[in-house]
């Protein structure tokens, strides 16, 4: 006999979608107003063996980033004679989302996230100071509740600061969304599943430049 299994919780199935994302008083599902961030906490130097590391919690999204480098390039063919290369690897823990994700080879989404982080930081880190070296950025999501890319960018900035890698500016990032014609700041997982857009934005505060902007919509 074949069974279909339903897990109650924060499913994306329409049958258990919350009725209203924004109450008439203007409060969201977790009690925030439209322009309020979730609670942020961060800690530097959590992995003593790494050159730099940071752990960031944004609400229930938890990310840990370690930075190794600048160090010798492993594959000599990839070395650049005039600058450091930046390598990024992104992983999500199998237990980080409501449904278990099989670990192993990184999936397309993981590779895309890694590439976005790498490109952003290639523009910000002063790579010309360290020719023929590589800087490795390893990102691991331990729990995800929306806003993964934003949390990773912030944690990466902190880890690079902890490693003492020179940068032109800090990269600060957050996700925005729009539900029922109301723009929302720092959306969580349920809000990102609500048939509205999910837009991560990363800015360099001193110059006011936007270094990453992306929009997904379901």
């Amino acid at each position, binding site marked *: 006999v074949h069974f279909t299994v339903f897990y109650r919780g924060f499913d994306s199935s329409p049958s258990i979608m919350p009725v209203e994302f924004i109450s008439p008083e203007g409060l969201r599902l977790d009690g925030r107003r439209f322009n309020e961030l979730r609670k942020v906490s961060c800690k530097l130097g959590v992995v003593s063996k790494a050159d730099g590391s940071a752990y960031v919690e944004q609400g229930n999204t938890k990310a840990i980033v370690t930075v190794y480098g600048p160090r010798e390039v492993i594959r000599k063919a990839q070395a650049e004679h005039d600058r450091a290369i930046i390598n990024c*690897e992104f992983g999500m823990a199998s237990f980080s989302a409501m449904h278990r994700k099989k670990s192993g080879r990184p999936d397309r989404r993981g590779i895309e996230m890694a590439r976005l982080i790498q490109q952003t930081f290639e523009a910000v880190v002063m790579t010309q100071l360290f020719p023929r070296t590589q800087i490795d950025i390893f990102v691991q999501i331990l729990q995800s509740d929306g806003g993964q890319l934003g949390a990773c960018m912030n944690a990466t900035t902190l880890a690079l600061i902890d490693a003492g890698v020179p940068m032109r500016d800090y990269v600060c990032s957050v996700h925005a969304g729009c539900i029922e014609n109301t723009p929302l700041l720092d959306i969580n997982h349920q809000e990102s599943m609500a048939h509205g857009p999910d837009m991560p934005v990363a800015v360099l505060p001193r110059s006011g430049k936007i270094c990453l902007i992306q929009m997904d919509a379901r």
Partner: protein
Amino acid sequence: GFCCFSLCEEMEATAFQKIHPIEYYRRFLAQQIRPDGRPLSRARRTTVTCGSVTTANGSALVKYGHTTILAGVKAQVGVPPEENPDHGYLVINFELPSLCSPEYQPGKPSEKAQALTEYLNEVIAKADVLRLSDLCIESGALVWVLYVDMYCLEDDGNLLDAAVLAVMAALRNTRLPDVEVNERSEAHASAARPNPLNLLRTLCSLTFAIVERVLIVDPTREEEKLASSL
């Protein structure tokens, strides 16, 4: 003056450790002590924090000194094996992501991780830590499958002991939902998780290493590299 002198000494000691690690270590062994100040038979300070990952059914973060392992248990409803139709099962997976140590190169899957996964699955399965029949929902049709995923966040030696402790702590922290099965062959798992696991026994492991024919307990990564056997 004085500050400058002690900084010089520290740099010399670090240089000595890099150039001649075994000789550096012998100096400590002669005093019956190890570089981090521990006597030969003492394990490192251990901390266990449970329940930090709320998306998992159970989780534990174990720190043995600097060695850090995060274990998370995800329970999924599955089909029982044919030979044991009313037994659930446990699947343990150990990952050594590149972030945990400068020694692990990005991109390459680690043999050490696979070896540890095999070892943990064998040891935990043979030790009967829980009655697999407790995981049965409907005999022959539905059982709980417990996936224990472990991530090493920092490798400073003795992954084995930390891993065993992490699995046990995560299983103890695990809470399963109630499952209702209806006549339309649908199984509904509740959002609430009121049911703890009934663990029959707790495993404890202790690792020894032999360095220069001296037995030490709970080796750090540096000591593991110098050891002739573990």
